[in-house]
């Protein structure tokens, strides 16, 4: 099986290359089917690898394959090597599985787009990069994928590039991610200088060996990798690119900015768990960055009116939960929630895409209402996603989120505080998702009362101003508009993802050791065991978690259905403005930052070059005084110089020898 590993990334690569050459000719929809089938093929190969690993002894579930030496330089040598172990196979399964479903959906969503085949070309390239990221057997191949997904994210966010704001959003994503990449690169250099290699197996062996990396070095390494992860996984303070990334077509938001790419920071940290085990305070930093992000992003999500923006901030918040899990050493829970989140968040994004596509590309939830009547499948599956993310048992999100929170509780001490933060964020999650479901699928049909112009709502203006639209098409919502359900090619993935979001929890049920399949499966790649609470504590935590979800939902219903409280009370301005974080960055970059850059350019032009020109001017003035023979002809002038140069040379030569 080991010699077939290369097939997993090779299939999307083949799809990508085919589309580069033949994409336009294949066109709509064949290009889409081709791309979908390559990802489906990768899923099948991964499944075969999965079965193969299952059949092996617990401790020898590990396949490697090195295709060739990529970068050999002295005692630094890195191969284009793949590693299939329980962790990477888990990642590949959901990347290819969810990825294939989203590809399928996109065939319907992107129908009629003039760059249809180019969209799938990028999508295949993305899947290729993502697979390289998780399959790489060393930090450098992972970095190849890491940057590759970043580039694809850039291409796809600015896919509708004639709109200036889409182009800006793409650039912002790339540049912000590069800040994280700086951390990744320095971390890689440091790893090499202390381990002597960037291969994961060498890092693991070093940490298990006689002289593991500990102390300041271990903490520094973890912090540097955390910098990398905060970029890619949109954590404080680098999360600002992700909400803007919603400018991309909705399948992109589902695939890249919810299910797969944004989790790669978490994957990286879990992959390096033997290193994290040796670090001390750096783990606490990870956990608290996650806690702060989970909470801040959840508050922002409460005040968003763009259907995708709510989900974007929700993603940031859920990624914060994953960081809490990683920082508390609860790596299984991180992977568990990563997978269930991939199911339900992809579902929610695709559901929102279905709504957007059928609401004339208007993304303002204040124009929606009662859509369950027109889009029954979209509504039903969206509700499944809602219950899953809100943490209602037995939906998948409940099990995985509970495991993160109870894990934080189990660490005790300051982590009780983190546990409370997590609970508040979870409560807000249930609240804002309830708000979204109510505004979209229930209540009155608000577009009926829109002015004929479409978007004349006074209060809508502000939201429109900075919202990135899913399409360059302008809103066509009129009071007479009749929404319809999406075609089967879009609803089938919704149903499949809804099923996964419903039952995904079974992969790691906390009842007995026998039901913790994922935990056993991942055991070989984890350096240490995590001690979960058990007995009465566990049950008490479960009850609290359920209570929080229920309270959040009831509060949401109270505000948005019963209207017990005016929404304005909850939807604070500071939340709507995302705590002014992004705005202050923008103000800094546009103000002092820009001025500093300008000053530098001025300095270059006037001081440095000025000095040179000044010297030249002086020389030529004194030259003019002597030489009045200036012909003004280029040739003569230049020839004179050449001859002069030769004379100087000749002078030295003659002086020297005789």
């Amino acid at each position, binding site marked *: 099986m080991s010699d077939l590993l290369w097939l997993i990334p090779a299939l999307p690569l083949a799809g990508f290359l085919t589309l580069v050459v033949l994409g336009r000719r294949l066109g709509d929809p064949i290009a889409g089917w081709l791309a979908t089938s390559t990802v489906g093929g990768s899923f099948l190969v991964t499944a075969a690898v999965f079965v193969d690993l299952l059949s092996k002894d617990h401790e*020898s579930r590990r396949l490697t394959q090195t295709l060739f030496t990529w970068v050999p330089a002295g005692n630094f040598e890195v191969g284009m090597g793949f590693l299939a172990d329980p962790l990477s196979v888990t990642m590949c399964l959901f990347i290819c599985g969810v990825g294939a479903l989203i590809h399928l959906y996109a065939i319907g969503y992107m129908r009629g787009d003039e760059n249809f085949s180019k969209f799938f070309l990028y999508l295949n390239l993305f899947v290729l990069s993502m697979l390289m990221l998780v399959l790489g057997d060393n930090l450098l191949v992972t970095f190849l994928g890491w940057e590759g997904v970043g*580039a694809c994210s850039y291409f796809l966010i*600015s896919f509708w590039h004639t709109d200036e704001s889409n182009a800006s959003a793409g650039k912002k994503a790339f540049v912000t991610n590069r800040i994280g990449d700086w951390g990744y690169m320095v971390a890689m250099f440091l790893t090499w200088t202390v381990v002597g290699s960037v291969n994961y197996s060498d890092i693991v062996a070093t940490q298990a060996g006689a002289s593991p990396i500990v102390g300041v070095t271990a903490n520094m390494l973890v912090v540097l990798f955390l910098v990398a992860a905060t970029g890619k996984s949109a954590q404080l303070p680098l999360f600002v690119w992700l909400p803007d990334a919603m400018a991309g077509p909705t399948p992109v938001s589902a695939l890249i900015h919810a299910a797969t790419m944004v989790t790669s920071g978490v994957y990286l940290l879990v992959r390096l768990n033997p290193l994290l085990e040796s670090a001390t305070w750096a783990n606490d930093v990870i956990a608290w960055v996650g806690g702060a992000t989970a909470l801040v992003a959840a508050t922002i999500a409460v005040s968003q009116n763009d259907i995708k923006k709510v989900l974007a901030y929700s993603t940031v918040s859920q990624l914060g939960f994953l960081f809490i899990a990683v920082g508390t050493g609860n790596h299984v829970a991180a992977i568990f929630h990563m997978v269930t989140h991939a199911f339900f968040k992809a579902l929610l994004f695709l559901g929102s895409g279905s709504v957007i596509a059928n609401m004339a590309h208007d993304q303002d939830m204040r124009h929606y209402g009662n859509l369950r009547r027109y889009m029954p499948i979209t509504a039903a599956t969206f509700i499944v996603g809602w219950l899953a993310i809100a943490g209602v048992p037995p939906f998948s999100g409940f099990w995985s989120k509970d495991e993160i929170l109870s894990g934080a509780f189990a660490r005790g001490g300051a982590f009780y505080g983190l546990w409370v933060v997590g609970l508040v964020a979870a409560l807000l999650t249930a609240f804002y998702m309830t708000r979204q479901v109510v505004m979209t699928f229930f209540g009155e049909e608000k577009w009926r009362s829109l002015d004929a112009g479409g978007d004349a709502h006074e209060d809508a203006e502000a939201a429109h101003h900075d919202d990135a639209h899913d399409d360059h098409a302008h809103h066509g919502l009129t009071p007479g508009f009749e929404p319809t359900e999406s075609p089967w090619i879009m609803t089938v993935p919704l149903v499949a993802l809804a099923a996964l979001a419903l039952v995904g929890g079974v992969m790691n049920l906390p009842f007995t050791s026998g039901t913790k399949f994922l935990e056993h499966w991942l055991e070989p790649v984890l350096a240490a065991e995590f001690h979960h609470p058990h007995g009465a504590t566990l049950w008490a935590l479960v009850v609290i978690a359920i209570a929080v979800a229920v309270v959040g939902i009831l509060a949401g219903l109270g505000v948005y259905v019963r209207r017990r409280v005016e929404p304005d009370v909850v939807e604070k301005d500071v939340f709507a403005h995302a705590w002014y974080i992004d705005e202050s960055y923008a103000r800094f970059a546009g103000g002092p930052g820009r001025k500093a850059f300008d000053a530098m350019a001025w300095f270059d032009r006037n001081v440095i070059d000025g000095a040179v020109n000044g010297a030249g001017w002086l020389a030529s003035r004194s030259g003019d005084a002597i030489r009045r023979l200036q012909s003004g002809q280029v040739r003569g002038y230049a020839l004179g110089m050449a001859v002069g140069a030769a004379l100087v040379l000749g002078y030295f030569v003659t002086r020297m020898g005789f």
Partner: protein
Amino acid sequence: MLAAEAVGTAFNPLPWMIFVPAVGALCVALLPKARVDLAKLVAFVAAACSGALSIHLLNLFDRGDGGFQYVVNNLWIPSWGIGWRLGVDGISLFLLVLSGVLFPIAIAAVNPGHDDKSYYAWLLVLMAGCMGVFVALDLVLFFAFFEIVLVPMYFLIGMWGHGDRIHVATKFFLYTMFGSAFMLVGIVATAFLHRQGSGGPLTFNLVTIATDQSIGTAAARWIFLSMALAFAVKTPLFPLHTWLPDAHTEAPTAGSVILAGVLLKLGTYGFVRFGLYLFPEAARFFAPLLLTLGVVGIVYGAIVAAMQKDLKRVVAYSSVAHLGFIILGIFALNVQGIEGAVLQMVNHGISTPALFLLVGWIYERRHTREIAELSGLQAAAPIFAGVFMVVMLSSIGLPGLNGFVGEFLTLLGAFKDARWWGVVAASGVILAALYLLWAYQRVFHGPLTEPNRGFREMSWSEGVAMAPLVALIVFLGVYPKPVLERIEPAAKALVAHVVEHSGAMRPDIPAPAAASEEGAVGTDGSGVVGGGG
């Protein structure tokens, strides 16, 4: 006599790589003025023959040998010890190939518009000079080629350039000559002090002088500085860089291509060959200074590039930043740094000329390079935009494309032996993304405005010129091994030379703890639970 006789009986391509374009230049000059097409053809054939020889050299080259190969060692002016001494090693090999590939492309891809005959003749002279610089193993011979190069470049900018071309050409010429004067003094002093120190006859033989190391420490440091000044201007190193954006911008496209692709490498190559090799102790001594200037160049070049309003100037300033990485790698003084630096010379010699070609074609279509005048070109010419994107991502250093491997190795080398310089320099990857993507957005994204509406898609001939460059960009990004393994023996020999003459290095990187066991991950993973805290 000037004629070179190859040592041994085997065919030695080195002299021919210089002669063929030189003779070609003569032929072009003798052609009738009206036969423009013929001039281009002859020029292309001559350049392509020399290029083919350089590629043939790749085959002939013994990849395991760290010393000079295909050495020619004939005395030219015996009384002064000046010789026609040529040779190639892993460091110069790919710079020769780079020149061999770029000149034919530059000749084929753009037409000068007027005075074709002299244009092509000068380009061939330039090629002969560049080839000569990279194979010269004699100080005077090196100096001669180094200077010869200036003359054709002066005419190319002055006659076929844009804007204030005469002023710019003069500035370029004087600025570089200013540096060269110091180098000439350095070369003469080197030879005489070597004679004094070694007691042997006067010689300008690079290998002899470098091997003997008979010049006193203080004198060597002064000479190093004087030579470094010449190379720093050529590279160019901050703050001696301001001739470059002007020269790049006003030069005709072929001039910019050669300037960025080959000429700048004369400086960095000089640092390696006539800095590190000739004066290892002095190079070591001044390394902190040069590392600092390199890092400043990386950050400063990127910031100034971001603020340029002319697309060609953005690319020009990006060279300042990229060359900073090369200097950083060279003065890391270890195998990774030097290998990375040499690879980065090649990489920069591929992607920046490609960018100049693309910007040149934009100018041909729109007659402007003002970023503010351009908008939405991707909508009008998606293939053109796609090619630009690939080349730009290579320049940004995206893994999988060539720019990354070199940049990564220079940073890795710097981090190993000059840690904080490496950490600061790594921030260049953020800035590179910033200025290039911003430029790309303003030019290619956004609405397709009226004056840009008719922007022509990439033509077949343009595609043919770009194809080898794009192919190299991808190939060297995925499989740089053939290049690296040929550079490595020479880089190792050079590092050993530096270490030998300048004291021990820092302790080397440890060997990985356990490279052998396959099942280690699982067993150790679960076994360590108890002591995991």
